[in-house]
C-alpha cells in the first residue's frame, strides 16, 4: 500500500525562501480580522457533543488543575513569565510546574512577546500541533495588539490574527501577579465550560 506523503521536504535554499515567502504572504492575507474568543464559536462545533452531568465538572477540574504551558517566548515578556514560574511567585501552586518544550504535551500557550510575520507561520504551526483541548493566553501589549510595534511593517497586530486567544493579560510587560491573575481567570473559564 502506498502511503501519501504528508509533507514535501525541501532541500534547495532558494526554493525554501520562495516557499517561506508564500506561506507568510498567505497567512498575512488570511489574517485580516482578529479571531473571536473560542467560547463564541466553539459552541456550534461541539453542540451535538454536549454532556451535562457532574462528569464535566470533574473533567474540567482535572483540566484546569494541570495546565501545562508551552515554551513560546518570542520576546521580553518571557522574563516576567520565567519570574512567575520561579520560586518567588511559584506558579507550580496551580498545577503547572512543567514547562513543555513539545507542543504535543502542552495545553496552554502563553504568548510572551512580540510576534513578527516571519515568525508567525511557526507559531501557527506550533498551535496546530498542540492537542485539544488547548488554550491561549495573550500576554503583554504586543501579544494583545502588537503594542508599540503595532504599525510596524513586520509585526503581527495581536496573536488573535493567527490563533484564537482565550485570556488577554495587559501590561508592558505584565507583572507576574497579573499573569497569575490571568491564569486564574482561564481556570475559571475552564471550570464554567459546559461542553467537553
Amino acid at each position, binding site marked *: 500500500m502506498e502511503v501519501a506523503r504528508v509533507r514535501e521536504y525541501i532541500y534547495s535554499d532558494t526554493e525554501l525562501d520562495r516557499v*517561506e515567502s508564500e506561506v507568510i504572504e498567505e497567512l498575512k492575507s488570511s489574517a485580516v480580522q482578529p479571531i473571536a474568543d473560542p467560547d463564541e464559536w466553539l459552541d456550534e462545533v461541539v453542540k451535538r457533543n454536549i454532556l451535562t452531568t457532574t462528569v464535566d465538572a470533574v473533567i474540567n477540574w482535572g483540566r484546569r488543575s494541570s495546565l501545562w504551558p508551552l515554551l513560546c517566548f518570542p520576546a521580553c515578556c518571557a522574563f516576567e513569565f520565567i519570574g512567575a514560574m520561579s520560586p518567588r511567585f511559584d506558579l507550580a501552586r496551580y498545577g503547572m510546574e512543567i514547562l513543555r518544550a513539545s507542543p504535543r504535551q502542552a495545553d496552554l500557550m502563553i504568548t510572551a512577546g512580540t510576534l513578527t510575520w516571519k515568525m508567525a507561520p511557526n507559531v501557527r504551526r506550533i498551535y496546530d500541533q498542540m492537542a485539544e483541548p488547548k488554550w491561549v493566553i495573550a500576554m503583554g501589549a504586543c501579544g494583545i495588539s502588537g503594542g508599540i510595534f503595532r504599525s510596524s511593517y513586520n509585526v503581527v497586530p495581536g496573536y488573535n490574527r493567527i490563533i484564537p486567544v482565550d485570556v488577554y493579560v495587559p501590561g508592558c510587560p505584565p507583572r507576574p501577579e497579573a499573569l497569575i491573575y490571568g491564569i486564574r481567570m482561564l481556570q475559571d473559564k475552564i471550570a464554567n465550560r459546559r461542553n467537553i
Partner: protein
Amino acid sequence: MTTTLSPGDVAKQISQRYADAVIETTDTAVLINSQFLLDVAAFLKDTPGLEFDYLTHITAVDYFEYFELIYQLTSIKHNHTVLLKTRCYGRENPTVPSVVSLWQGANHQEREIYDLMGISFEGHPNMKRIVLWDGFQGHPLRKDYL
C-alpha cells in the same frame, strides 16, 4: 583600551598607495571613493603597522542624496581602530563592493543592509534578504519608506 587612530594619518597612508581614493578626512572618519573600497580595505588589512584584522560592524545611513556606509575596523593585534566611510548614489540600484572576501563577518551584516536599505553588495556570495521574507515590497529603513 583600544586607541582610535587619527583619520588623517590613516588617510595619508592610503593616499600614498591609492592617490585618488580619499575624498575627505573628518575628525572621526576617512571618507573614500566606493570604487576603491575593496582595494583600500585590503590595504588596511594587510599593511604592517595597520593590520585591521577585525571588522567590528558595518552600518548604513540614508541621506536622501546618497547612502553612506560606515565600516568600523579594528586591529586585534595592535589594539587600534578606525572608521571608514563610503558613499553610493542613486536610489534605484545603489551598489558597493562587498568586503566578505576580506572579513567573513561582513556576510550577514551586508545582507541585513541589503534587506533594510536596499544597497546591493557586488561580489557577495549570497545576496538575499535576511530579516524579512522573500517577496517583501520595499526596504523599510529607507527614509522614504512608508
